[in-house]
């Protein structure tokens, strides 16, 4: 990904998001931001490192729950709760990674699914006193920010811009990570892990760190969800959430930086809009997803990029031919 190109797309995306709550609705736009962050975090592992996980709901859900627990049982501030979600996302990634990162592709995907399901069932019954079981975590107080200035997080637009601020910072942080030498190393691992290893790099450690970063941002997204909802649903840990973030990322294009953002936003928009037209929207979304995988595996952004590349090449070639003749 061209360094200058991808940062441009980030700025354009952020600009669009500035107006989005007024064009669509503030709640929908807020969810788009949150799931964009989740998908971006997820894509650190998938698009950049080439490792697919079917258990990312674990980091998202744990982030959401710990933020909620901090807010409800410890009366902490919103900042502290978000910090909690970041920490738990990272810690969970460390634990799960330690047990599974060495496993190859498909195995890792299934193990991550199993762990996520275990957390789900724990939240559902064993730890019900803390999590509220299948009712979810309720009775979180009405939220507001006091530092550095007062923000009423119960109102849609202040809430939106608070989430916007956090997500924007995170996007830049992720961009930094992916464009750094470490990011290049992850790409190398994605392209050919054995070769990278042969060059002397500790690929297992690199993948592990990639997973931890992925967990941190996914956890933060979960924490933001709690702040937005004022409640933690148990579905945040359910495997369908893991599946959804995979779909969103693929839809947008896993090999571009901004792809996951586009994918997450479009997915939510479609889910919202199509359900007004028909109750059977899952049929259309599923079919569309299948068509996507078959015809446009690079996702929306990836396919657009490819088209632009092909066009540019053609122009270059015709110029070259022109030069020669």
């Amino acid at each position: 990904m061209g360094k200058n190109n991808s940062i441009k797309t980030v700025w354009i995306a952020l600009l669009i998001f500035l107006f989005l709550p007024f064009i669509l609705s503030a709640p929908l736009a807020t969810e788009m931001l949150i799931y964009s962050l989740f998908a971006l975090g997820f894509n650190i592992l998938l698009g950049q490192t080439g490792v697919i996980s079917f258990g990312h709901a674990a980091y998202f859900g744990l982030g959401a729950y710990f933020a909620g627990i901090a807010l409800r049982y410890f009366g902490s501030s919103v900042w502290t709760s978000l910090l909690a979600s970041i920490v738990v996302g990272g810690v969970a990634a460390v634990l799960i990674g330690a047990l599974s990162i060495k496993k190859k592709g498909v195995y890792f995907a299934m193990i991550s699914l199993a762990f996520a399901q275990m957390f789900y069932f724990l939240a559902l019954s064993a730890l019900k006193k803390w999590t509220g079981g299948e009712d979810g975590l309720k009775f979180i107080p009405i939220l507001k920010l006091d530092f550095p200035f007062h923000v009423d997080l119960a109102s849609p637009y202040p809430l939106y811009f608070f989430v916007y601020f956090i997500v924007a910072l995170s996007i830049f942080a992720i961009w930094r990570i992916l464009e750094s030498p470490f990011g290049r190393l992850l790409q190398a691992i994605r392209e050919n892990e054995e070769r990278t290893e042969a060059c002397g790099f500790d690929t297992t450690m690199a993948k592990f760190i990639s997973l931890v970063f992925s967990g941190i941002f996914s956890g933060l997204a979960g924490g933001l969800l709690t702040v937005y909802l004022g409640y933690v649903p148990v579905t945040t840990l359910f495997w369908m959430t893991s599946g959804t973030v995979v779909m969103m990322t693929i839809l947008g294009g896993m090999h571009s930086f901004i792809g996951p953002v586009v994918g997450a936003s479009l997915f939510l928009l479609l889910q919202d809009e199509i359900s007004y037209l028909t109750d059977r929207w899952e049929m259309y979304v599923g079919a569309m997803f299948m068509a996507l995988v078959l015809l446009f595996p690079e996702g929306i952004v990836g396919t657009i990029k490819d088209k632009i590349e092909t066009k540019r090449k053609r122009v270059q070639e015709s110029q070259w031919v022109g030069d020669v003749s």
Partner: protein
Amino acid sequence: MKKVLWLLVSAFALVTCFSTVTLAQTARFGEAIPLTGPYAAMAEDMKRGSMLALEEINAAGGVLGKPAEVLITDSQLKADVTIRRFKDMMDQGYKFIGGSLSGGISLVGNEFACKNKLLYMAFCHTSIPVGKEFCGYGFTSAVIPYQPASALANYAFKNFGKKWMSLTADYRWGHDNLAAWLVNSEKYGGEFLGNIYHPLGTRDFSAFIPQILAKKPDFLVVTNYGTDQASAIKQLAELGLTKKMKIVISKTHIITIKETGAAFDENVYGSSTFYWHLQDKYPEAKTFVKTFWDKYGSPPSQDGECAYTATKVVFSAMNKAGVVDDVDKVIETIVSNKWPSPKGPTEWRPCDHARLQSICILQGKGAKAKDWDVATLVAEVPYTETLESCENNKKDIPYGQVKLPGK
């Protein structure tokens, strides 16, 4: 270029503001029900009931002279989607929201209404009137989870015997029912032989059967819902339990009875807040059932009746109070009047917003069931026998104090 952009943005902003202002005079009710997901068929019935109510309200002149509006959205049986729907509605100026099939999600809707001072009318069995859930803004057009158990317990202990066991879906609604059964067992001198929890979504109940056969209860209480219930009854019948004991289902549904087929025979009983056979007893039910059936091709289930009555009441209360956006006034109006419903006049208690309604006990027909004539109505238990006092509800007594086995 910049100017054009700013013009567009201001235009959008104006349009949104303006539309909210003009619509504020229309009576609107926003619902979030699980039109997709495992209970889609039941939610469909809610949608129908609500739309029928809307039609009737508008045919009679609407609310304050203008046609009323109902917005029905899909909650996908998810709490976060429900909250998104309600946030959107609130954004658009809706003050009256409702819906929900899941008790758990109804509590989330209730909490949202409490935090934002909206009126929330649930369509389902929920604990909104109980304990710390109640805040004054939530209602339900159904009953509290412990009520069906109380209704059935009296009948069961009187007619089937004293020894009982239970098979309970392991989630809050299941636990609430089990607690109610345990309290009633004490009350009627029942002998509790044990409880079996099963996870939501269990397909194969055979592994739970041997212990039931060993204990030989007079009746088995089954507390689960939807497909779980259909599977459970089918397999209980397959394994011969329906011949050895009576099966008493805490809450059943005509769709589930139909899905179960011949296995739901004369030894299987269940509760429902409404059954279309009530048309023989109440003229209002007769009209309601006929209109609904003619329009939609199948009779209204309890979900249809709850949604219908809820929608009717919200709009009627607006009419009576003379307002479309004063939530407190509408709440006041609802609790201080009696309202017509398919089960005769109905009312909501001011202290905890519980609906004072009866519960029907149904008996299966097995192979004799034909089309939608799937059950016999054996009893209609009045609310006086099932609903606790406000004081008790506030403190969640006695059911909240029960120590559940194995928990």
